[in-house]
């Protein structure tokens, strides 16, 4: 079927490629783990993975911290008939083109851009500053996207909690804060985990945001992969990097799945 032809096959080919080697302009079709050895030997390749992991973790944590209160406010404080429209509004930019969104942040953060101009106006700085082309810009761009995603998953989780859990907790003597800590928060952990997992997967594999906002000084894993393809046409190295990235994602996936199952027991 389709998937086999265009999904599984590429992986098989990629797997084979990753074991080959490229010298000069020629492919050496000889199996070896040289590419994988290279990955650990060449610091810039390995560093791109640690960079990616750092950024992804940071983004996931910040996004959860920002999104949870918003989802909670939307689910609890906003009257029912406004909820729908409030939620649609909260995730509207979610549907803009990924590319365009990153570009928009460039507008906001760049030298002479909106924030720089605002800081000049209120006199916090005396000359235009640039906040783009570094890791924080990448993180801001990512957080913007994933706050919306997490708001959605956490909101869905909060809404499907039966109202009686809260009532029962109060009935047994818990005030609002203890109701939240002992009952609401543990019961919304699945929503947080699902959202966090999605964030992790999408964030670590994304090329566009770091490429536009991150500048050239620090590369993330997808950028490194892209570099191998675009500049050097080194498919074997690119393949090996892609497979390493996939392995990391699969490990996180298995950990999540295991955690969710454990929780159910």
């Amino acid at each position, binding site marked *: 079927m*389709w998937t086999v032809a265009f999904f599984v096959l590429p992986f098989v080919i990629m797997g084979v490629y990753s074991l080959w080697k490229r010298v000069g302009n020629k492919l050496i079709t000889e199996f070896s783990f040289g590419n994988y050895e290279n990955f650990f030997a060449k610091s810039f390749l390995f560093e791109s993975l640690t960079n990616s992991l750092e950024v992804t973790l940071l983004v996931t944590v910040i996004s959860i911290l920002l999104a949870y*209160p918003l989802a909670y*406010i939307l689910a609890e404080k906003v009257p029912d008939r406004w909820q729908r429209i409030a939620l649609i509004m909260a995730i509207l930019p979610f549907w803009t*083109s*990924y590319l*365009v969104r990153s570009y928009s942040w460039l507008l*906001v953060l760049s030298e002479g851009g909106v924030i720089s101009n605002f800081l000049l106006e209120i006199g916090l700085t005396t000359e235009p500053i640039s906040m783009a082309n570094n890791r924080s810009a990448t993180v801001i761009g990512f957080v913007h996207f994933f706050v919306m995603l997490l708001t959605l998953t956490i909101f869905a989780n909060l809404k499907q909690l039966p109202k009686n859990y809260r009532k029962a907790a109060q009935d047994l003597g818990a005030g609002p804060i203890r109701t939240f800590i002992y009952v609401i928060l543990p019961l919304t952990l699945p929503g947080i985990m699902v959202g966090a997992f999605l964030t992790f997967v999408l964030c670590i594999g994304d090329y566009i945001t770091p490429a536009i906002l991150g500048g050239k000084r620090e590369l993330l894993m997808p950028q490194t992969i892209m570099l191998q393809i675009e500049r050097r046409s080194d498919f074997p190295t690119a393949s090996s990097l892609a497979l390493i990235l996939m392995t990391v*994602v699969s490990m996180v*996936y298995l950990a999540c799945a295991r955690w969710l199952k454990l929780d159910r027991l």
Partner: protein
Amino acid sequence: MFKFRNLAAFTYAILLYGFIFLPVVVLVLFSFQESRVPIPPFNGPSLKWYHAFLSDGRVVEALYNSIAVALLSSLVSVILGFLAAYSLARHNIRYSGIIQGLLTAPLTVSYLIIAMGLLITFNTLGIPKSLFTIGIGHVVINLPLCFAIIYSQMGAHQANIERAARDLGANEWQVMGLISVPMLWPALFAAFFLSVTFSWDEFIIAFMVSRFDVTLPVEIWSMLRTGLNPKTNAVGSFVFLVSVVFIFLLDFILFRKIKN
């Protein structure tokens, strides 16, 4: 105390909404910029950058390409997704668990990796890069989504109605055409619209497996290389507007379905 807490919540929500909307507002606002750079001070409104982008042959061509790829690849995705869901939900197929897992697996894999895999495969097989290959790529990413949406809507309730139709003498194709498809049409429609939205926005696959005929996001990418430009804002605002319209259509359809 109660008042204060609500006020804090309200303020927080407003601030976060501000954060969420800031880039979009800036994008749209400066697409009406008069001068050549989309940074403050704003000196519009002017429609000249919209004119510029609509009279740019390459951009318009990319726009048409995008529409064609989005519609066709989504149509293929929905049909394949429906057939897969139908056969998995209605017939006892061996290894159905594995097939289901395989069908949904691309959802968890980064587009970049899919794109690369496709590129290498096309190269190996000697398939030239074109709009057609972009379409194939988009079906790869949208098929799992369509399958998941349609499969989730094929409940036991529907199975019983189909059984009733068979009982009344309908053959397999009549059941599918007269019963399953009409009953599932909100799901099919939702899957189609969502696919169109994703395909419309998708960049990395289109970028990797195309050469001369490009889609709009790829064109925007090359425009980005030239730095900040109100024309890019105009194109971006346009893309945003189209996506929003699609989402509202989708929402409207789903909402009607819930009402029914």
